[in-house]
Every structure is written in C-alpha cells, then in structure tokens.
C-alpha cells in the first residue's frame, strides 16, 4: 500500500458472531474507484447478492471515506453510508457532513463494513485499534441525540464521533436516517433501517492518528488557495450567511418551489420560508462541518408561539420545502419543529414530508378517508396534524405505520387510485425540484441510481444561466438550448457531464457545495489535487477521472439491473410528464422524458431499448468481472 491519503485498511465487523477483521485496502481499487462510494459500490456489488432483503442479515452496510477525508482540503469531512436500500430495494447511498469520516480515518481505517445481525441491541466502539461491541440495551428506544451524548459520557470522551439511529431506525421506517453530530443526517434511502434491522444502535469512533498526503507542502498550499476560492466565491459567501434557505426565493422566482405535493411551483406563503425572514428572527449561530470555510449550518431558536423553546439546527431548503410549501404550511417554526422530530427519531425529512403530502392529497381528493387515517382529518396547511403524523411515523403507530413504508408502498396498500399522488421514482420520493421548470433535473430524477435524486446530477449551470461555463464544459455549439430550462435539447449532455463530476466528488469525498457554483471546483481542480494527495499520477488526468466516474455510475446501474431495473423504471410520475405546470414562469410546461433518455443512454453506452449497459461499455470500463 504505497498510495498516500489512504489508511490502507478496511475494518469489517460481523455482528452475528461478534468478530472484527481487518483487510488491507486492495491497491488496484485506487485507480479503479478513488474511494468513497466507489469502494463501497465494489463491496456491495460483489457481496450482496441479487434479491437480498435489505432488512435481512445478508445485507451489508458500508461506512466509507476518500483519500482526502480528514485533510485540509475544503469541505472534505464527509462520510458515505452505502447499503441495499430498504426504501427502494435497489442501490442505496447517503452522504453526510459532520465529523465522522475524518475520525474513522484518524482511527486508521478507510472504510467500515458492517455484516450480519446482532441478537441483542448493540453499538460498535472503535477507539484506534481498540475494537468493541457493547450492549445497547439501555439505549434502545432513545432518540439519536440522547444516544450520542450517552455514549460520549459513558466513555468519558466528548470527542467520540457517533452515528446513531433513533426509534425510526429501530422500527425500520423505510426512510429512517442515520444521524451524526446531533443534526447532520444521512437521510435518504433508509440507511437507518438497515442499522435497525441489524440491532445496531450506533457506531462510535475515536481516532488519534494522522492522515498523511504524498506531497504535504504542495497539497497544503493548494488547499489554502482552494479555501481562498471558496471564501471569495460570491454564491458561497451568500450560502454561508443564509444557508440553503437562499433557495426558497430563487425557486419561487422561477416557479419551481414544490407546493401542494408538487401540484404547482408557486407558493403564496414563500416569504415566511425564506432566509430573509428566518435569519433575523430565529438564527442564533452559524456552524460548519469539518474543514469547511463556508459554514452553511444554522442553529435556530423559537422564542414564542406553539413551538416556543425549540432549539435545533436547520432545516435545509429541502426540509422547508417538504414540510413547508409542499404541505401548504407558511410557517418556519413548524418546519424547525418537524426537523427536530425527524432528527431525534432519525428519519429523512424529504421522504417523510412527501409521504405525508401524498396522504393529504389523497384525502383531500376523496380517495381515502378517516377510516384509513386512524380517524385523523387530513388537509393542507395543518401544522398540528403534520407534527402528530411525524411522531406516529417514527413510532409506527396507527396510520403512521402505513406512512412509514414510504409513498410507493403506502399507495399500493391503500389502492383506490392513490398511486397518482405518490410522487416517487423507483420508490424514492421526489426532492425539491421540478423537471417541468428545469428539464435536466427531470432527467436526473428519472435516471438516478437511488431514485428521485437531487444530489447526483442536478445541473446548476443551465438553471442559473452561466453561459461561459456552459460553453466551456459542453461546447459553445450547444448554446443557447443547453441552458434553456424549458427544452429537452442537449440536457442529457449537461446531466452526463455533471453526473460524472459529482461521481468524483463522491469518491473524494467533498461536499456538494464545493462543486455547485462555478468557479469553485470541478474536474480539473480534482485532477490537480489528487496526485498531490495520493502520489498517483494516473489520477492527475481529467480523462482518467471521467473513466472512473463512468465506471462507478455504470456499476451502480449494473447493481440495479441485477435487481430488475430497466428503462421502464426510468420514469417520472405523471404529474411531471402529463400535468402542465399550472402557473408561474413555467406555466404550461411538461417534461418530455423519452428523447432525453435516448440521448443519455447513448452517452452512457447503455442500450436504448433496455437501458442497461452494453457489453462494449462494460468492457471499456473494465467491469467484466461483474458479469
């Protein structure tokens, strides 16, 4: 193991027999995958067989990092959880900020693989080379924050980093999250339920070692310059002040603020969910994840009203949308309270909000009634009921037990035509974007490996109209269509190239906000940095990084293909393809998915008919072993 940046070791824990095992990190993986979800994809593909029940002991959970995790590179403290997803039954991954990943590396491991299932509730404690599985009997049933603090107190070390599940994960809520540092969520696809199914309450890590890079001085100098670029980037500055709340106003302006379960993109109450409104009234401190000079996290306190005394971080824009505009609630304190419940119970606020939205619309449209909902009347703009439903979901009480299955399964259970209000792709609920007003995200939602994803291929350059950047990345010949949000033309090109860059982002692993607005980092910046970090010159060429990205995206596709996914599953709910946007700047727009899919498959080297990787593509990406 000569490459730098890595610790060179993979830690495996088998909960069935209570053993630990350390494997060397295969050196060939570095050029093939770089790290992060690439390493984890290899393990998941080779070790979790097709048809495995995600909630069975045969599923595995990977906690993975990259070569620059724990270094001075901006926003490089992220961690990824990978497993077969309880929400969708396909590829599952969830990235999270906070401080866990660096601690895993300081303890001496690039990745943790959790296997098997414990008989009794336990937590894993990793303190450098001291490895233990400890009873969590006294923690079972408690909230994520209580669990975290209890473990730190018990071992007399407040610097122990904890990834915990709450009651939602224990109850196998299909969109249960894993929580880090009180309020940072590995939210999507139900990773918390995987932990719950293994009787694993928490993973606690403390490391005192070092991460070393190949060229320390060169790397530090480049990293410092990179921090300067973040600090001087105007959008990043704004994001530091307002957090993702800045998006509410942007989305409203372009008519893409999901409202009433994505019925429309315009919300009359948007101002009360905007940064301008929230920050001066409620925000008490700004916080950052590991190694981040932007600091988008906001801690807020509600001084009065029904939720007086709520002290909590967030929610992000996605939470404001999922609980706010999408449920017709123009009230920030409700979204903060909802976020607190989701954090403490450990569940994804996006899927939780979307599933409640599905139920409300089904009720309002008369497809379901009080007999289905434990006697609860559902309507838009009803804070109290939403808060009540969230707790019922976390506890799987009454109607909450139905909603805890996510919108797809809930609709299958309820029937009666409710399916049309279950807005998901492959089982994962649609996030806070709308293909009707931003065509490229329509394609991204339809093709994302984990379902309706806003983090793997969301193009910012087209929507915000960065003409020069678009010309540089995709070719001037594709202007102006490629940055016109209302046309399908060339959108596959934008999605393909962006998804590749984000795939590299997810191997390093760095935060979404270090790639989102030009001119902060893109492929060539990573190509410049990676040889300094790892000593691998191969990683210093953009074309090689593109191959690695393509390999990774195609490998995830092959994982899904093995579970039966084909082109027929790359679809959007009818709301986006058949119901024209009713108002706002995008009035009358719908998504025409098929031509974008054709273009996208061609670029990926996937078969047009089946949507599956062709033999040639598999060969070109050296993935024959996976056949």
């Amino acid at each position: 193991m000569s490459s730098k940046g890595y610790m060179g070791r993979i830690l495996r824990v088998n909960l069935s027999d209570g053993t630990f095992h350390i494997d060397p990190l295969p050196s060939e993986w570095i050029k093939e995958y770089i790290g992060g979800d690439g390493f984890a994809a290899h393990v998941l593909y080779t070790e979790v067989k097709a048809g495995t029940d995600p909630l069975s002991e045969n599923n595995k959970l990977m906690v993975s990092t990259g070569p620059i995790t724990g270094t001075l590179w901006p926003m490089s403290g992220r961690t990824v959880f990978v497993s077969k997803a309880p929400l969708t039954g396909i590829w599952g991954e969830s990235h999270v900020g906070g401080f866990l990943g660096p601690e895993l590396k300081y303890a001496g491991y690039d990745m943790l693989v959790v296997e098997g299932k414990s008989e009794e509730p336990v937590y894993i404690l990793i303190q450098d080379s001291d490895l233990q599985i400890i009873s969590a009997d006294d923690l079972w049933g408690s909230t994520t924050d209580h669990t975290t603090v209890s473990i730190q107190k018990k071992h007399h070390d407040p610097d122990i980093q904890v990834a915990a599940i709450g009651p939602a994960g224990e109850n196998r809520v299909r969109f249960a999250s894993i929580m880090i540092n009180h309020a940072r969520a590995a939210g999507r696809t139900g990773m918390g339920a995987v932990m719950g199914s293994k009787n694993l309450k928490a993973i606690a890590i403390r490391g005192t070692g070092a991460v070393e890079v190949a060229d320390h001085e060169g790397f530090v100098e480049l990293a410092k310059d990179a921090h300067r670029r973040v600090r001087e980037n105007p959008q990043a500055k704004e994001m530091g002040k307002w957090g993702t709340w800045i998006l509410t106003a942007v989305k409203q302006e372009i008519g893409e603020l999901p409202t009433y379960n994505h019925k429309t993109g315009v919300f009359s109450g948007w101002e009360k969910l905007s940064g301008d409104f929230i920050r001066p009234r409620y925000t008490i401190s700004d916080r950052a994840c590991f190694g981040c000079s932007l600091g988008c996290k906001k801690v807020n306190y509600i001084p009065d009203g029904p939720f007086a005394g709520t002290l909590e971080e967030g929610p992000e824009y996605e939470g404001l949308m999922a609980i706010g505009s999408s449920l017709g609630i123009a009230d920030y304190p409700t979204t903060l309270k909802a976020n607190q419940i989701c954090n403490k119970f450990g569940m994804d606020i996006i899927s939780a909000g979307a599933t409640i939205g599905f139920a409300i619309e089904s009720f309002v449209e008369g497809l379901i009634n009080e007999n289905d909902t434990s006697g609860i009347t559902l309507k838009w703009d009803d804070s109290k009921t939403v808060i009540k439903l969230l707790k019922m979901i976390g506890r799987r009480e009454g109607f909450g037990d139905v909603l805890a299955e996510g919108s797809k399964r809930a609709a299958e259970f309820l029937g009666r035509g409710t399916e049309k209000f279950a807005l998901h792709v492959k089982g994962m609920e649609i996030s806070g974007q709308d293909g009707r007003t931003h065509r490229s995200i329509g394609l991204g939602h339809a093709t994302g490996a984990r379902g309706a994803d806003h983090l793997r291929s969301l193009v910012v350059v087209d929507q915000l109209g960065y003409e020069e950047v678009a010309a540089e990345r995709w070719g001037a010949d594709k202007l102006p269509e490629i940055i016109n949000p209302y046309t399908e033309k060339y959108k596959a090109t934008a999605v393909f190239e962006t998804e590749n860059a984000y795939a590299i982002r997810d191997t390093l692993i760095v935060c979404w906000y270090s790639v989102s607005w030009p001119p902060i980092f893109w492929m060539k910046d990573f190509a410049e940095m990676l040889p300094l970090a790892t000593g691998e010159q191969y990683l210093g060429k953009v074309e090689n990084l593109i191959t690695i990205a393509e390999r990774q995206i195609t490998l995830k596709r092959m994982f899904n293909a093995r579970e039966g996914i084909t082109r027929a599953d790359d679809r959007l709910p009818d709301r986006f393809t058949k119901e024209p946007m009713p108002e706002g700047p995008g009035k009358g727009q719908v998504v025409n998915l098929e031509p974008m899919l054709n273009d996208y498959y061609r670029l990926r080297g996937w078969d047009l008919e089946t949507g599956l990787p062709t033999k040639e593509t598999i060969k070109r990406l050296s993935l024959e072993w996976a056949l």
Partner: protein
Amino acid sequence: MSTLANQLIIDYSKCTGCRLCELACSAKHEGKFQPSLARLKIVKYDSLGLDIPNVCPPCEEAPCIEVCPVYAMRRDPVSNMVYVVHDKCILCKSCVGACVNGVIRLDTYAMKIIKCNHCDGDPECAKICPTGAITYGPVSSISTVDRHGKVDRYLREVKRVASVEEAGGDV
C-alpha cells in the same frame, strides 16, 4: 504584562467549529493532518450548537509555569509567550493537567510535551480561520472579547436541554 506583545484573540461568537485551525496547526507542526496533536482545541457542544476555541493566548498568570517542578516551562520576556525547554522537561505532565485551556499535550509517540508557540509570531490558525474567530495582535480593550459572551446566550437553553436529556431525550 507588556502591552505590545501579540496574543491569540478569540471571538467566541464567530467560531463555526470547522476545526480548520486544528488541521492547519497539525499540518504545520507535525507535517500531517492530525488534530489530536494540534496545539489548540475546539470544544464542541452539538446539542447546543456551540463551538468554543481553546488556545494558549498565553495566560497572564500561567499555571503551567508555576506547576512545573523543574522550571522547564518559561516565559519569553519579549514576546511574552510561554514555551517549554525540552532539555529540562522530565515529562511529568504536570503542565498538561494545569493548563486551564487544555491545550498542552503529551505526544505519546514522540514522547515530548507539545505546546503552542504562536508559530513564532505568524500563527497558522489565525491565518486559516475563515470567520475571524481567531485573530492575532496586541490586546486592546476593543479587541478583547468577553469569553462568556456567546455562552451566556445559550445558558437559558442549557438547563432545559439538559433536563430533557436526563428524561431520556423525549421530543
């Protein structure tokens, strides 16, 4: 004390808890990224959303100097900074325990006491800090920020959160 000497000055209300300062410090002094050997420490309270940098300012009355049995901990009369004379140090760790900021450490690998030296007048932590929470300069009445300013804002919340915690972390 000398009014001209520079100090590390902390504004507790600005720190976001990013720990870049710990990274930059270990990068400079250890040649690697190892916060456990940084010469300063960010104490984090995630439940309260609070981050508190602990540095060697240095103290005006330095307990580490007073406690050292062999006079290995000394103060530079010009810079006013406190430093260890490694030749004299017997690794008794008295200073580690005495430091009110908790930033003197024993490097158990190199077997030596490690302690901030203000990077000889050009502190890395102040240079990397993105928020201005750590600055370096002569102390004046204006730049001295009340250590407890930010903490006070949270005090009314601490009790409530703590009592909820005791009760099992209910919502």
